[in-house]
């Protein structure tokens, strides 16, 4: 896992389905590993493979026309279970960015903690991205974290996106939350001393 994200230009993989839950991203029966690696092979397992483990030809990840480090999905992406394995599976497969018009909260945190950038765009812009990929499956998408914009290279259409300043700094520099929290050790101990109850 690369612990940094700054900028990329890449083709994108479209999954225009709403409410993609983390059970679809990685089904529970593949959560038995005790490391963070190797989940990519089971990314979207039951949409990618049939009961005999044969690739389903109609699923986009099995279509060689589509590739790239950007996943584009319908609204409310990542709802359901808090399993970080969903973010690990996306990262392990090679995705660096997920574009949607709406993300579930826990997924968004999990993605950021794994240096995957969730780019929330308007419904209109999401439609434009889907259309661009429909027109040209190799359509390049540019994502610039420093300047907080996403751009469809061929048409020049772009939109800015939000990210909180703290997480932006983390992604640009490869910092993680634990580094920051560990630096607060004295404050934490001081806080504990002020609590009226031992719970």
């Amino acid at each position, binding site marked *: 896992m690369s612990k940094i994200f700054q900028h990329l230009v890449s083709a994108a993989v479209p999954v225009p*389905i709403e*409410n993609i839950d983390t059970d679809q991203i990685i089904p529970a029966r593949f959560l038995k590993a005790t490391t963070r690696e190797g989940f990519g092979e089971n990314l979207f397992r039951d949409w990618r493979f049939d009961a005999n483990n044969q690739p389903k030809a109609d699923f986009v990840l099995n279509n060689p026309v589509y590739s790239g480090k950007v996943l584009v999905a319908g609204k409310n992406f990542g709802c359901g279970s808090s399993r970080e394995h969903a973010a690990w599976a996306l990262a392990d497969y090679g995705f660096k960015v997920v574009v949607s018009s709406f993300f579930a909260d826990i997924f968004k945190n999990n993605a950021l903690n794994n240096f995957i950038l969730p780019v929330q765009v308007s419904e209109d812009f999401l439609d434009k991205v889907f259309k661009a990929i429909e027109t040209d499956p190799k359509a390049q998408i540019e994502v610039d974290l420093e300047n907080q914009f996403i751009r469809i290279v061929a048409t020049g259409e772009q939109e800015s996106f939000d990210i909180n300043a703290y997480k932006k700094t983390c992604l640009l520099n490869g910092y993680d939350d634990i580094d920051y*929290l560990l630096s607060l050790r004295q404050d*934490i101990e001081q806080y504990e001393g002020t609590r009226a109850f031992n719970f």
Partner: protein
Amino acid sequence: MGKTLFDKIWDSHIVMSKPEHPDAVYINTHFIHEVTSPQAFDGLRKRGIPVFRPQKTRATADHNVPTMDQHLPIKEALSRHQVEMLTKNTTEFGVELYGLGHPFQGIVHVIGPELGITLPGMTIVCGDSHTSTHGAFGAVAFGIGTSEVEQVLATQCILQYKPKRMKIEVNGTLKNGVLSKDIILYIISKISASGATGYFVEYAGDAIRNLSMEARMTICNMSIEMGARGGLIAPDETTFNYIKGRQFAPQGADWDKALAYWQTLYSDSDAQFDKVLTFDAADIEPQITYGTNPGMGMGVSQHIPSLEQVEEKERPSFKKSLDYMDLEPGSTLLGKKIDYVFIGSCTNSRIEDLRLVADYVKGKRKADDVVVWIVPGSKQVEAQAKEEGIDKVFAAAGFQLREPGCSACLGMNEDKVPAGMYCISTSNRNFEGRQGPNARTFLASPLTAAAAALTGRVMDVTKNI
């Protein structure tokens, strides 16, 4: 201006609040289980640091455990390894474990409350989205990812942006046969699976206030199914009576001191919420889901929306969902034949759920071609059921009373619904494949599930009680 209950608890747990930074929030109780913790312990090892406050973390094995023959080694190698890793990690890092065979073992969101670990005013996290369950006690409780589990193990704190506040009021009297599960399924069907994303929800109103603690837990449990970070209910006499005398609950002078504090835990009358929704309990009928997210639900006597009733933009996802379920738009589910009944999960596996089902099915027998699994939420629930003779009622009805665990809620352990089969389930998610590859789930209350067990069909329980 007054404060909401959520703000009172959140604000009193802030260790550090810096501009442009998420709040560092102190966590009182951290629950862990075998699936989302191993990578977090590995992270500590890589950094060479201990668990900062090991006595504030409690562990149990639930997701991956079999629900039959728990005294024998787990057959499936990967599951066994994961459960063994939890034992190894908790031993090495000094964390208390209620593992298989322990009298406190069970689903993490069932054991916390029943042991008196979950208390009002606490901040509680767990690497599991249904941690919202604990909010029923007036705690700020929410699910987290594994990187965040590592944060809590390392520092007893978590970095979070403060969510917005929503109040959902349910007023009035419930119809006979309508349970708290129906209330929450109804709310989710009205506001959708993403209707509360970005919010922390407080449930209020007399219909909520009149519920037992078990019933309140069912409501808070499913907060995440409408996208909320969590849901909570102000503690009251019902809460205090439930907690008093439990294993780890405060006692004596500590109890009095705690109680005085808990009685301050309510939203002030002039507190401002970012959003307020109000529902009438009398409008709620027994609910059932027809689709593949918990927002796709309806009253059991209603019809599935027709294609024309669904917004054009949402039709492809709607159609994909109904294709998966092999259901027709516009059709009814009443009388629909079902194959499996699952009564269990952190939503509905408490003693009250089992009592309700036992009362309903007593002296009756299940339909011949239906498999009925009853999975108690914990060893304590299982023991209580046996003490009350509920196990005999189930045996006479042809139901299987299994051992505690997450079971068929999530298709991870041995308990899976076969492909193509319909299961009426008291769990919380009807996602594609949730109960097993290509299994089809109807979410419903324990009563609706019990009625289906007896007849083999989707029934309206209000018609025959």
